[in-house]
């Protein structure tokens, strides 16, 4: 009887030990599966963003994105600044056009005078 109870106790102990051994085996897989998948999902977007950043524009985006610091410039304008007005087409155009017309008129007038003098001399 004593022998039986000892055997029973021993079997119980072994069973418990086996169960306890199996539990960590599950525990090992379960926690490692859970953290490892977020670790993969967390890690992959960041390196892939940097790896995908082939051109300069994307690289700028990549360096800007993680900093999550508010922009010191409230609204960033688009593109370049148009801070140079070229030659004023109206003003200069008028001047150039006016000057050409005046020169043409003067040349026509001079030609008329020459023809008239020649005719006068010939007559």
């Amino acid at each position: 009887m004593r022998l039986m109870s000892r055997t029973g106790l021993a079997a119980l102990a072994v069973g418990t030990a086996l169960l306890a051994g199996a539990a960590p085996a599950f525990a090992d897989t379960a926690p490692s599966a859970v953290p490892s998948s977020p670790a993969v999902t967390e890690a992959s977007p960041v390196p892939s963003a940097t790896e995908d950043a082939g051109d300069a524009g994307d690289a700028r985006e990549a360096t800007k994105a993680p900093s999550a610091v508010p922009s010191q410039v409230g609204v960033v304008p688009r593109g370049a600044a148009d801070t140079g007005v070229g030659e004023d087409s109206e003003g200069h155009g008028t001047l150039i056009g006016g000057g050409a017309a005046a020169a043409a008129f003067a040349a026509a007038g001079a030609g008329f005078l020459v023809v008239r003098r020649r005719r006068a001399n010939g007559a």
Partner: protein
Amino acid sequence: MSPLSRRALAAAALTVLLTGCGGPADRTTDGASAAPGTPSAPAPTRTAQAARPLARSVPVALRIPAIGVDTPLLRLGLRADGTVEVPPVEAHDRAGWYGHSPTPGQTGPSVILGHVTVGEYGDGVFRHLDRLRRGDRIAARLGNGTTAAFAVTEVRTVDKADFPTEDVYGNVDRPELRLITCGGPRSGDGYRDNVIVFAALTSDSTTISAGER
């Protein structure tokens, strides 16, 4: 039979030990995976040169002795198309401060724009901006009576098609100034390039004298 129970007890103790080791190992993994997500310096790694930022105050005038600029400042905003507003052509003698940027002397890039030429009106206020050299002084007088003094750090001429938005408007770790105008070849309706002057606040703000370069 007692040896058996001892073995069983030993096995149970070993499993408990193994289970106990598993947890912390996973937490370390978590910690390690969290670490790469957090770095990233917020701003370029230029180290500030002991010029203390000034209180916010809207700029009212700009002086650049090296190129003879002494102008009141307008306040500029955005155009409907999202580009930056520039001073009106009639106000060719004035520059303008971009109102969405920090005021001169605050930490960040304060942006001031002016024309290089204004068609029939002739030269703009920033006609000779490209003549500035590293170390030239710029003084922005603020509405609160103080003066923010800057020293030129770089002058850049860039194609408008490749405007360096991040370099001009991006965050910096000290008070800086950007002066912007046009430059390069001129066609009938404008210029190909932008001239951008980069400057940093100097420690002698509010003390710049009238004749100082």
